[in-house]
């Protein structure tokens, strides 16, 4: 059974690009256009890992991260922040909110997949 990874990004092209990398490695993909949209799609199904952008409309990545950590079914789901943000202060903010890794765009598919394999829930 393929593991499920949720991608949260307001850029459709970024969701496609991350999706290509994940699907080629055998993962099933669930997409959210922003934090709010992604929360509405977390309806109890098993999600092994979440990859989220930081700067998004409606609900940004840090707010989304905090909201997921408040959800009983998903509070242990590892979250990777995938963003153009590289400021140390922002990273610390993400770490404090419960992110497990911070990946700066653009990413190399093999390296992102390495992080996904390392953190994905069994």
């Amino acid at each position, binding site marked *: 059974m393929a593991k499920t990874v949720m991608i949260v990004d307001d*850029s459709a092209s970024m969701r496609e690009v991350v999706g290509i*990398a994940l*699907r080629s490695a055998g993962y099933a993909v669930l997409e959210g256009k922003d934090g709010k949209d992604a929360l509405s799609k977390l309806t109890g199904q098993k999600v092994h890992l979440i990859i989220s952008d930081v*700067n998004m409309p409606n609900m940004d990545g840090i707010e989304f991260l905090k909201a997921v950590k408040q959800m009983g079914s998903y509070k242990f789901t590892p979250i990777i922040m995938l963003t153009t943000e590289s400021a140390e202060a922002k990273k610390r903010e993400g770490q404090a909110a419960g992110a497990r890794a911070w990946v700066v765009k653009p990413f190399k598919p093999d390296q992102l997949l390495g*992080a996904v394999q390392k953190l994905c829930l069994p």
Partner: protein
Amino acid sequence: MDIVGRAGVQAWSATALGVVAAVAVVAVGGLAWGPLLVAPVLAAAGVLVSLRQRRREALLLQSMADYVAAQEHFGQELAPVWCRHIETSREQMEGAVSALSRQFAGIAAKLDEAVHTASMETSIVDDHETGLAAVFDRSQRELDAVIASQQAAGQSLVAMLHQVQGLDRFIQELHEMAADVAKIAQQTNLLSLNAAIEAARGGELGRGFAVVAQEFRMLSLQSGDTGRRIAAKVDLISKAITDTCKVVGDSVSQEDQSMEVARASIGKVLHDFKGITDALQRASQLLKDESVGIKREVNDALVQLQFQDRVSQIMTQVITSIGRIPPLMQEQAEIYAQSGLLRPLDTESLLTELKKTYVMSDQHKVHQGEVVAKSEETEITFF
């Protein structure tokens, strides 16, 4: 004092100076014709200079008002057009790259499927147990074993032929033995004849001996007959052996020829089969190499496609920064209208605001006019 104030003072100063000069001339020269003529001229000159300065002042004020109005117009009309163009371009680029990414996703999925199928096919060719090469090696070994078995059977047949041919000397011995029997029978017959003669000479006394001689002769005749029959049978056996040896020899010879033909045919089939397996193995290796190359190119393309996201963010920040200009221009116009003062745009605060929106370290470098180096590695921090 501002430029408008200074212009006003200068305008009134010229009139005052003309009047003062006229009064001074009258005061000094008295009420004579000369001073009375010069004084009005001086006063009129002062008024004229004053009027000219006021006209220049009015022109200056008008040009400033026009300038401020033009700037406000610039802010209200041109900046939004720039923003709309940039935003439209950003949206079109986003849409185009998204569509491109979707198409690319389809191509990548098909490529994955093709590469997967190819790897399955190549594993059929390359597998150490069931692969084509392994089947070829096994077939070659088994066919070699069949040929070797056939050769062994042929060699056994040849050995048996040699053994049968070796029976010839026994036939010769049997012939000699038959000849010996015939010779003994002949001598015995001769001996029985002599015995009969001697029995006849013995008369009545030799009668019993004559009977023995007669029986003895009978036995010698039977022995001779047996010897001849033995010789005849030996001839028959000899002929049968010779015929059998010829048949077997011909068979062995045909077997050898068939074996050579079979060996040549098997060799040709194996050679052709080897050619096919080698070609398949080469194709399989090429397919593997190409698969690796395609995967690398897909990964490179995925990196390049992500730059749209960065470009989109930067364009959005630039739009926001340009969008700040119209209200500032309007504010400047309002201040001028209220106070007649011109307040310069605060470029530093605009730059500071723009810098606050930067999320990439590259943007700070670009802001400073530095060259941005392209990063080759993904920046990953694990917590």
